[in-house]
């Protein structure tokens, strides 16, 4: 079952459903009866993207049309914004991009998924190779429309000594899946996979990651935090596979969520599959509410409850934003958070 195949064949029965174990909390088959018509080309204005002021180059893919490859030459350093837009006339489409980062190169990829239309089904498929000793920091801001369905999948392949860091920030969609698969060779390569989901009303977001350690001495560090309110639903599925022979793997995974409403839901599935010896793997998964004592303490100092809630929620999520390495991207992420929480700065 694949979203891309369902769109290409205009066949809703090919969509993943809750019968697929990896999609049980993000059923698309039951949600979409008919695949929306193929998105036509869009030649109108698309406005500004969230990273326009930070990147030196902006790639724009609208309704699946746009550049299909990005190459960073060995040793080169680039900061590129990638805008993946579902335009106001969007129906269903696939955006495909291949990114090749040469040995020793450095790419900061500032990716935004922008839902400017309604009722669309948008799929994005990225294939990324990170060469030996190269570095990729990928920041994803997903701002889908509440009526849209957005799926994105990145296949990231690391070479020895590569550094990959990713931070995903999303407000969800009618249904949304952001999936990252990392082929991890070990050999001093490192991966950091972080995420924030901030959901309200009836929005849904699914952050799924699969990291496969194939060789000796690799590191993976994951921190995902979420806040769900109203009737929203957050899903975190994190799988780390340590293959036979991938000794001295160091893998840590944390997923922590705040539930602000008794009708909101969080589903977390951390999975560590370890087939090697001499590995250090740990995971933590917590779901809770804001601390009433902290709210009272802030109130006693004069901070009204809505402001105290926003402040404590922002503080809960700040740890993830603080891990973003690129300063400009970190500032955008902070502003993104503050704007959505109405937190004092």
């Amino acid at each position, binding site marked *: 079952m694949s979203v891309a195949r369902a769109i290409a064949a205009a066949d809703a029965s090919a969509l993943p459903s809750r019968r697929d174990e990896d999609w049980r909390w993000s059923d698309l088959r039951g949600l979409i009866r008919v695949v929306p018509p193929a998105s036509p080309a869009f030649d109108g204005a698309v406005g500004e993207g969230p990273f326009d002021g930070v990147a030196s180059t902006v790639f724009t893919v609208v309704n699946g049309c746009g550049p299909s490859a990005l190459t960073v030459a060995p040793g080169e350093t680039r900061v590129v914004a990638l805008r993946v837009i579902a335009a106001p006339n969007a129906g269903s489409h696939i955006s495909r991009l291949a990114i090749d980062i040469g040995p020793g190169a450095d790419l900061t990829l500032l990716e935004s998924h922008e839902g400017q239309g309604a009722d669309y089904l948008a799929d994005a498929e990225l294939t990324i190779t990170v060469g030996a000793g190269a570095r990729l920091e990928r920041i994803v801001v997903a701002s889908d429309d509440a009526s849209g369905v957005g799926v994105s999948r990145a296949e990231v392949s690391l070479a020895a000594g590569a550094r990959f860091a990713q931070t995903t920030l999303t407000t969800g969609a009618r249904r949304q899946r952001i999936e990252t698969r990392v082929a991890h060779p070990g050999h001093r390569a490192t991966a950091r996979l972080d995420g924030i989901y901030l959901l309200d009303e009836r929005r849904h977001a699914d952050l799924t990651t699969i990291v496969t350690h194939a060789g000796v001495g690799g590191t993976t560090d994951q921190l995902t935090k979420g806040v769900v309110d109203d009737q929203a639903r957050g899903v975190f599925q994190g799988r780390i596979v340590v293959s036979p022979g991938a000794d001295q793997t160091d893998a840590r995974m944390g997923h922590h969520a705040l539930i602000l409403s008794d009708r909101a839901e969080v589903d977390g599935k951390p999975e560590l599959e370890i087939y090697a010896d001499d590995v250090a793997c740990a995971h933590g998964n917590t779901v809770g509410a804001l*601390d009433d004592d902290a709210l*009272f303490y802030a109130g*006693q*100092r*004069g901070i009204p409850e809505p402001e105290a809630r926003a*402040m*404590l929620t922002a*503080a*809960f999520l700040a*740890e993830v934003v603080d891990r973003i390495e690129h300063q400009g991207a970190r500032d955008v992420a902070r502003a993104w958070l503050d704007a959505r929480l109405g937190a004092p700065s």
Partner: protein
Amino acid sequence: MLSITNLSVSVDDKPILSGLSLDVPAGETHAIMGPNGAGKSTLSYALAGKPGYEVTSGSATLDGVDLLGLDPSQRACAGVFLSFQYPLEIPGVPALTFLRTALNAQHRARGEAEITAPDFLRLVRAKAGALKMDFDMLKRALNVGFSGGEKKRMEILQMAVLAPRLAILDETDSGLDIDALRIVSEGVNAMRAPDRSMLVITHYQRLLDYIRPDRVHVLSAGRIVASGGPELALELEREGYDKYQKAAA
């Protein structure tokens, strides 16, 4: 001034305060002493409006304003400050951010202009210096990893910056060594003023050697059972609370 009349408070349906009456005139510092379990902390939480502390009868007013009808932040903006016995840790919120947010919230509630960043930093630097606090500590998350003494100094710093009408100090001496106790007490004494009332809640007389009260009240079994001058604290230190517990029983 603070005026408490016939106040009864229950926690989980269990009566803790029963018919407590107390007046603290403007400019005066009163001490509340009593054995463990007498209801000292309950009195401070009830005045501050902590959820779960249910007032079943009586009244409490500050300058004529009915405190009991206000939520905690409104009471704070009306001038009530509680120095917590166990100050909370707030991960992710730098102490300076927290304090500035609180001060500006109080200014807004009173219809005053918000304080500018330079003015705020000047104010905090001066107050922190007087309490011999390292300014860099205020850039860290509030109370996270602070020692017991540092947390208590942080409470007094917040009090100094927020300049309340009524300061309630709940067991401020607990967890302080003798040097910290002196510094904290000097900080409190520096805030005594004709338009400010203080309620010092303590189990031991020791704190009152540093913060000299105008009046001392004995709280036992949820009521004030005796009141007197500073000499009452010395008598309690000598003779204990036994006779008051018997009297209350």
